[in-house]
């Protein structure tokens, strides 16, 4: 008779939840790529596949009262934050049941309930928004954290440097999270940065900084918890550089001439989902059957999201000019 597997510990249950979140992002986006080819999704589509550990790890350290400001590669950030997969998929379909009524699309995902302030397609342009949200919290005496995600490309923008300086100068509760996937679109870090150790830049602004393995969700979560505690404790901003890698092309129009297949394959060996599931298996906290069940639950969740988007409706063209200005007169 087979030995009864040990009950997972509280920690292991938490890690299994993290694994499930990463798997949901992965499978959701794989479907997005298919739906793009099927012309259900249009515009730009930037996939997060490979980078799931970053947003899943960071979001695990945040609470619902905190605010998140995201990038244009933000499906993973949105799902990890708890944005409904159906509303997200419907948004990419351009349906009015989408989280932004189809006004934003893939690059502009917003959600009030989870304090998810977008999806921003101007690289670096959303960083000051997080600093402003943090300023509002500080001025109103609220102990909340504003977390902004941005890529290594944004570190070359003035918005990053101006924001780091002001957030530090005013001791604002901001968590700066750099998803360093080594390429600003197709320009390698070594071709765009004089100092490629991005975490080192925090010192110039007296911002507590740390670089972490962005392919290891537990390492990301641990570093993020430490940073969030410090930020929430009123010690000013923190900067977390998560060293990660995007497995797919930059967008659906990218021939990937700027990197080798060998490099991509090398990074795939560090797949955050494979790493965590292997670790949980080794700990006997996750049986093959458990993982298969997780896969089928996630597949159903993605299918439900697609069905929701398919069943969605088109906003009447008569509504085109709504939401240019607020419909209520006073703010």
């Amino acid at each position, binding site marked *: 008779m087979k030995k009864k597997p040990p009950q997972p510990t509280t920690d292991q249950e938490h890690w299994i939840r993290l694994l499930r979140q990463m798997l949901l992002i992965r499978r959701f986006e794989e479907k997005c790529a298919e739906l793009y080819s099927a012309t259900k999704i249009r515009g730009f589509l930037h996939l997060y596949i490979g980078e799931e550990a970053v947003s899943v790890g960071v979001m695990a350290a945040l609470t619902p009262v905190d605010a998140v400001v995201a990038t244009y590669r933000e499906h993973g950030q949105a799902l990890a934050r708890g944005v409904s997969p159906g509303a997200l998929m419907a948004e990419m379909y351009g349906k009015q049941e989408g989280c932004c009524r189809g006004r934003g699309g893939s690059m502009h995902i917003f959600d009030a309930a989870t304090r998810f302030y977008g999806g921003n397609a101007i690289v670096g342009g959303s960083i000051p928004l*997080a600093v402003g949200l943090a300023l509002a919290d500080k001025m109103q005496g609220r102990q909340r954290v504003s977390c902004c995600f941005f890529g290594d490309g944004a570190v070359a923008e003035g918005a990053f440097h101006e924001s780091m300086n002001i957030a530090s100068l005013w001791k604002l509760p901001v968590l700066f999270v750099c998803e360093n996937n080594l390429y600003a679109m197709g320009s390698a870090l070594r071709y765009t940065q004089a100092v490629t150790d991005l975490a080192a830049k925090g010192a110039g602004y007296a911002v507590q900084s740390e670089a972490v393995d962005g392919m290891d969700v537990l390492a990301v979560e641990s570093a993020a918890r430490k940073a969030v505690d410090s930020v929430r404790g009123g010690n000013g901003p923190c900067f977390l550089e998560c060293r990660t890698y995007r497995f797919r092309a930059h967008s659906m129009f990218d021939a990937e001439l700027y990197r080798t297949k060998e490099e991509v394959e090398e990074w795939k060996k560090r797949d955050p989902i494979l790493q965590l599931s292997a670790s949980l298996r080794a700990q006997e906290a996750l049986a093959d059957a458990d993982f298969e069940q997780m896969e089928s639950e996630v597949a159903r969740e993605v299918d439900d999201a697609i069905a929701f988007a398919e069943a969605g409706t088109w906003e009447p063209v008569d509504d085109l000019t*709504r939401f240019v200005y607020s419909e209520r007169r*006073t703010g």
Partner: protein
Amino acid sequence: MNGAAETIKTTYREAVRQGLHDALRRDQRVFLMGEDVGHYGGCYAVSKGFIQEFGPERIRDTPLSELAFTGIGIGAAMGGMRPIVEIMTVNFSLLALDQIMNNAATLLHMSGGLFNVPLVIRMATGAGRQLAAQHAHSLEGWYAHIPGIKVLTPATLEDARGMLWTALEDPDPVLIFENQTLYPLEGELPVTAGPVEIDHAQVMRGGSDVSIITYSASLYKALAAAESLAAEGISAEVIDLRTLRPLDDDTIMASVAKTRRALVVDEGWRSGGISAEISARIMEQAFYELDAPVERICSVEVPMPYARHMELAALPQAEAIVAAVKRMVPTHG
């Protein structure tokens, strides 16, 4: 307004200051943020003494980071505050244009109505002080091109005093352009002066032969021109647009329907400017009312020069307005 209301002699600068002071006292969520607004007292001295009265949290000196502090204003507005961002000069606002256009004007729409941005941005604009080509342009017409924001151009003491609070109550971003030559302008302001509506243009002088449509500092040139035209028997109506976005078409068309001639005076450049927009609207909405083509007096299309005589030549002047009106209005018998 009660004609018998008691007035005090004051300046445009003082009126702006009063509006700011009033807003800061009315609402704890209001704060002023920008370069040198605090310890220096404001580049144009409109916030002198505020840091002592309201403290450095609410009168917040910023680094020279226009992009970031404008974006921070947007974030703070979404976070429940009512920020007033001051940008020292309109040319500097170009460093913040990304935030104004790609975020402030756009977030409400991109988010499908989820997140509005109740932000006010004030900035000095305009030429006439020999500040040359990087401190003296009139770009408010440019900004008026952008859906999602409102563009106010207070010319009078009443508007300098009263537009700010109304802008702060607006749920969406409002840009207020203060022409820097107006700060020393003296005039009478009722002691009871307070918030004013921002939805309508105002007929500043009634007339029957031509409508001179203008805004901001050019208003005074138009009024001076109307005065000298009156001496020659030509009756010019002068309209202060007050708000460039949204434009008050009704007031413009009602005036044109009466006078049958329109002259637009705009300190911005002619090509693709707000004067072109106004002219096009008159053509679209009042073509059959017109007895003459719409004319425009705009700044000459050069970067603003430093030398006094050249700067004066580059700007619309009362003499040019008079000459244009005389071309448009048939000689009286």
